[in-house]
């Protein structure tokens, strides 16, 4: 494949190859979710060119990879800040105060759903049930670290600690 800015690093490609190997021969397309995740990890977000690159690598139409990338909201189709907070707003979380948490997050960060602070530090996203309803309301940071019981009054301290621990 030609060297374009969307080209992934050798490490990422090796990681994708490992995913492909998990499926039967000729079923490369099955690795699309992992491949997109790996690509996002390298590039920070999924530009259309990156999605097209992944699709070509897996020999599927670009629009098929696009369908997957737009279906799951852990894929970021726009650049995101250093810390991406994803708050679940589905019913159990909502019953436990996710709406107030959302309001507090928006007020403290000064951004709305899907936006990034001008300094590039924070991005706020609305999530769907993470399967961790026991700890509702739930926030996931940078797709990997889960924080439970994040009620509105905890927000200022929560944000402080994230800043201090660099998102951990």
């Amino acid at each position, binding site marked *: 494949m030609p060297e374009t800015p969307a080209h992934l690093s050798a490490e990422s490609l090796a990681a994708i190859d490992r995913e492909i190997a998990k499926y039967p021969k000729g079923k490369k397309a099955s690795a699309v979710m992992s491949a997109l995740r790996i690509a996002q990890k390298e590039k920070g977000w999924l530009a*259309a060119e990156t999605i*097209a690159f992944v699709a070509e690598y897996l020999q599927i*139409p670009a*629009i098929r990879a*696009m*369908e997957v990338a737009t*279906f799951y909201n852990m894929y970021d189709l726009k650049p995101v800040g250093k810390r991406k907070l994803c708050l679940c707003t589905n019913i159990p979380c909502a019953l436990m105060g996710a709406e107030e948490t959302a309001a507090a997050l928006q007020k403290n960060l000064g951004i709305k759903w899907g936006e990034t602070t001008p300094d590039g530090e924070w991005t706020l996203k609305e999530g769907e049930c993470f399967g961790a309803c026991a700890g509702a309301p739930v926030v996931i940071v940078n797709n990997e670290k889960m924080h439970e019981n994040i009620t509105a009054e905890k927000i200022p301290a929560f944000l402080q600690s994230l800043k201090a621990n660099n998102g951990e």
Partner: protein
Amino acid sequence: MEISLEINGKTARAREGRTIMEAAAAAGVHIPHFCWHKKLSIAANCRMCLVEVAKSPKPLPACATPVVDGMVVRTDSPAAKKAQQGVMEFLLINHPLDCPICDQGGECELQDLAVGYGISRSRYAEEKRVVFEKQLGPLISTDMTRCIHCTRCVRFGREVAGVMELGLTGRGEHAEIMPFVENTVDSELSGNMIDVCPVGALTSKPFRFSARPWELQTKPGISAHDSWGSNLELHCKGPTVMRVVPRENEEINECWISDRDRFSYLALDAPDRGKSPMRREESSHRLSESPWATALDSFAETIRALSGKYGADKIGFLASPNATTEELFLLQKIARGVGCENIDHRLRRRDFSGGEINGYGITVEQMRRREHLLLVGAQPSAELPLLAHLLRRRPRRLALSSVGAAECGAAGNHILARPSQWSGILESVLRAAQSGGGEKNETAAAAGKKLAGKETSILFGGGAVQSPHYPALLEIARAMSREFGATLGVLCGGANGGGAAKTGAMPRAGGMNTAEMLRGGLRAFVLFQCEPEDFAERALLSRALGEAEYVAAIGAHSGGLRDCARLFLPAAAAAETEGTFINGEGRAQTFAAAARPPGLAREGWKILRVLGEKLGLDGFDFSTFAEIRPQFVGEDFYNGGGDGAAAVSKKKNGADDSGGLELDFAPANNGLELAFAPAIYDADMLTRRSPALQKTASGKNAALAQMHPEDLRALGAEDGDWIRFSDSEGGAMEAAAKANPALARGVLLARCGGLFGAENITAEKMQMDKAASG
């Protein structure tokens, strides 16, 4: 195995594995549905088909639920009705309900089912969502807010058109049908998406806002562009064709048609459409309108005078292979009546030695089942879009061509080579088949082994038939036919591919064929429904016409011949006349006129009849279409019987591995070779003049000179650079270049404008200032 079930209280029988939807349809019970389509995979995402099944706690989707023995299904119970009404209410939540300004109004599945199965009020009072339009190209209009996300269009692309051009992105509230970024929909079957879309989300762009379905009269028709013989439905308002849609015929086109068949009607009122006879006086440079009587008399007088002066053998008759059987029959009768044997319809041909094959040699049904198809020089997606669809569904095929099309390549076995290499490759395939391998060329050896002893059909495409190597290819194909009983056929015969030769519109002993006529110093030409772009050697034709004393053109459009014709007689296009086309299978399909020819234009057979009479020839004193009975016609000719193709034994398909057989030959040193792949929208007078087709990606590419990227790089040129091509016979042409990695090395895919030769073409990049001033 058959099982029995109960649908709405009546006992029905169905084969195991069938769905409730199919079983109900067979039992005459209609179940409302949107996403289900008999030719597409099951998605079960619209939920409109919910039915009540005894013992199931929830209603089940009929389209995705297989029948089981003893099943009790109710499609009209209170529970089923409640489910249907609920689904309908949901579907309409975000639907704009803008039927008064929607083109689908009156033929909309959503409208019909809402009336039939919905309730008249909605409880939804909140804001509706709006989805922005997508730019899908010149053929399809979008109103995406109306979309109900049935994904029929997506599945059509993946499963029928062979390219996934649309997808369903997002989910829930945010789901949208769209192409990748800003792509357009470019497949040659794309118009069928308009038909499969059950709502007004995808509609025909050229037809937009021009008529309501209930104003239209439906007339049957037959495709006039290729030898498949697709069945059409022409929708007319008064005397005018407003749009064209498929007419279902399971044996031929199923429920699809190509975009060419769908949108070529737009050429019926092209600016150069002939609406009045025109004549050019000796002294004048311009054609001017003339009454029919004068025009017809002048034709008869001139033909008589010229045959007196030079002999009738100095006249040439050339007709389009898309002309009807009756027209061709009458034209050859006129030619022979005046004592002239120079008549031909094989316009896209260079070398006529080696004999003739007409039609496919097998039926479409047999094509679906043959063990092997060996395609030589064919580009199915451009020549016969529905053959491309057929090929996508069957893995056993081997293709040899200079243009690698997706339908030949990925899934099947494809050898990419220059036309001059084809006969050598075919020979090794044959030798490998005879000896069971041992060929140096591995690809050919593998191919030979595959074909040996198999039921094979060899099909020549336009690339082979137009090439100077056709006779050599034919010879090897005949040997293959002797060796393992392969049937032979040609794909590219035009709308009358199976019939034109039978009408007698071909020279007999002593007559000239097309190639000879172009070189024979003829004094007069009579052209029927064709123009220079329809010829393989168009530069030679233009020269011959320029040197002739008299050129008479009978056709729907005057444009291509305006400069050289002395007489132009405006004729009906296929949609405006009755006639018969015999397709590649040999199937005769007679059709009636759907529309009226414009202005003073008349049906071709009527014009020819009067010309025959004016010339004082025998056998032209009939007055109705039914009286023209071409002599070769058999008993059931007009009943659509045709003479059929050769009988083929139904052997079981053997197992087959379809590993890749890709082969790229190194470029030879002796210049470029023409690839002879007819551009899909440069096929005939109508497609060339359909503005919508010309605006498609394939339409725009036709004007470019396409070459392999490496060959282009060797010239120091890139996309968009102007290249001057010249041949050893003094021909030359200039065109903008486009790199096409699907081409074999060393071939040139272009409209061969000013070139005389087909090989040894030299290319040179032009300087920009020169190109600009030229």
